[in-house]
């Protein structure tokens, strides 16, 4: 891709991220007026500009995304989580004109402790039209995908990018248009993982400039504010970066950049302090449950079988991703990348095991209702880095 186009795509993705975050920032300050509408209009103008300038650039993404938005705008808001959690939070923000109304802990089932970034963005779609409705605000979750997709297009060559889009459509499927947050977590996770890998381990000069680090910072903030899982994944990414740096004896060399990026934790921490002060906690996971359920379940072998059955064995997408990973690294064994992905994969799997084993619900029920969703980050991680590994092969050959 020509440098100008790469730079254009980078700028567009940064602008989209900044507009999403400024929308959240304005709401957190209580600005629910014209400034919010201007912000969201600028977001749409940026997308129109991306589509119209150099029309042939990124044509496949433009066509795919347009089709997905059409599907999204042609379907009613149906999913359980979408209605009970995500759109309900957006609705509360719209009617209460505040991000902080969750302090009353009304409707506990809606997980009031979840960060509100995507729901604030969704509420702003309703603010733009001036009244509450569901279909258009639901599309906000689809528009949220655009920034990382544009960003990745400027860092992967054309052929590999088309394969990546096919992989994303295959792995995320209905989440692309049904307002599911887990797909967003997965795509922001792999984009952040890619950035972290580039900054700390690949060390290409072109990706070690302040703009790339700034983009990484924005992706880190967005990932942490999508959902609690997003923050957990971000922490794992930083741990992985630290461990691999330590393993390479380059921890001190990377420390300053790790510390700079750690500032991206602040918005999430502020939100959690707000929740803690108002007595809002997660209903699915508490430290008391850790003692009660985790230890009890850890000694039963059937629980492990159930866990791996739902998350890996009976999930055909995970199997395909694992096979692709094995295929990719069999042909080109990039040791650093292999350890980076394996460490992330196994540590997230271990975290999921702890969370599932601590659940206050029946383990089988909890796995059955959520395993398919939470595993998307893992499948996309394997799929993306397998492709990235082949990308390296292509370049070195």
């Amino acid at each position, binding site marked *: 891709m020509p440098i100008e186009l790469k730079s254009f795509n980078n700028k567009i993705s940064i602008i989209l991220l900044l507009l999403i975050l400024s929308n959240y920032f304005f709401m957190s300050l209580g600005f629910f007026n014209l400034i919010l509408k201007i912000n969201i209009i600028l977001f749409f103008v940026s997308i129109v500009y991306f589509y119209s300038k150099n029309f042939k650039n990124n044509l496949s993404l433009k066509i*795919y995304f347009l089709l997905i938005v059409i599907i999204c705008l*042609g*379907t009613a808001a*149906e999913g359980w989580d979408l209605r*009970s959690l995500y759109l309900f939070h957006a609705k*509360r923000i719209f009617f209460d004109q505040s991000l902080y109304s969750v302090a009353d802990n009304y*409707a506990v089932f809606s997980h009031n402790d979840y960060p509100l970034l995507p729901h604030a963005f969704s509420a702003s779609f309703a603010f733009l039209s001036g*009244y509450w*409705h569901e279909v258009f605000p639901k599309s906000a979750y689809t528009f949220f995908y655009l920034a990382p997709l544009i960003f990745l297009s400027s860092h992967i060559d054309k052929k590999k990018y*088309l394969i990546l889009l096919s992989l994303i459509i295959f792995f995320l499927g209905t989440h692309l248009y049904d307002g599911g947050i887990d797909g967003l977590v997965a795509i922001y996770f792999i984009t952040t993982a890619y950035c972290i890998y580039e900054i700390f381990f690949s060390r290409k000069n072109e990706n070690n400039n302040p703009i790339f680090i700034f983009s990484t910072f924005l992706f880190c903030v967005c990932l942490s504010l999508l959902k609690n899982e997003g923050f957990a994944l971000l922490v794992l990414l930083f741990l992985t970066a630290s461990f691999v740096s330590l393993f390479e004896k380059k921890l001190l060399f990377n420390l300053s950049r790790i510390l700079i990026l750690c500032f991206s934790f602040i918005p999430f921490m502020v939100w959690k302090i707000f929740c803690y002060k108002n007595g809002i906690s997660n209903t699915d996971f508490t430290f008391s449950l850790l003692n009660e359920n985790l230890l009890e379940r850890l000694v039963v072998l059937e629980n492990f079988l159930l866990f791996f059955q739902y998350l890996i064995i009976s999930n055909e997408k995970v199997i395909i991703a694992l096979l692709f990973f094995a295929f990719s690294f069999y042909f080109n064994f990039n040791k650093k990348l292999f350890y980076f992905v394996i460490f992330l994969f196994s540590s997230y799997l271990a975290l999921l095991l702890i969370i599932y084993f601590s659940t206050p619900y029946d383990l089988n029920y909890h796995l059955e209702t959520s395993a398919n969703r939470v595993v998307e980050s893992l499948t996309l991680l394997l799929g993306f880095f397998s492709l990235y590994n082949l990308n390296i092969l292509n370049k070195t050959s």
Partner: protein
Amino acid sequence: MTYLKKNKLIIFFFILGILQILYYWSERSNFKLQILSNPFKKNSYLSYILPERIIETRKILISNDINKFNLSTKLRNEMYFFQRVIELNYPIKFDPKSKYILVSLEENQNCESIFKGQYIELQKCP
């Protein structure tokens, strides 16, 4: 022809992506042209996705100008109904202390009947 030969991988994956989206559109979505023609409609096409008795609660609460409502124990125990009624009716809030209670018609609740719908009744308890 030369272009096709040179870019067969690109064309293959482009078509694969399109086919996947078409599959999701036709098999895995409840796509309706009517919704696409006006995605800004105030009623949000709820009749396509929610049972009539849940939509009825909203009509009852709005027409009777209720700000806070309670639900009978039976309705509260139906998880799907409970969550849908709460999210659908917001900013009208569920409050267990409210004297206005929604009951299903097959229930016997000895409070004053305010409004009787097709599936749900609004009662006022002392």
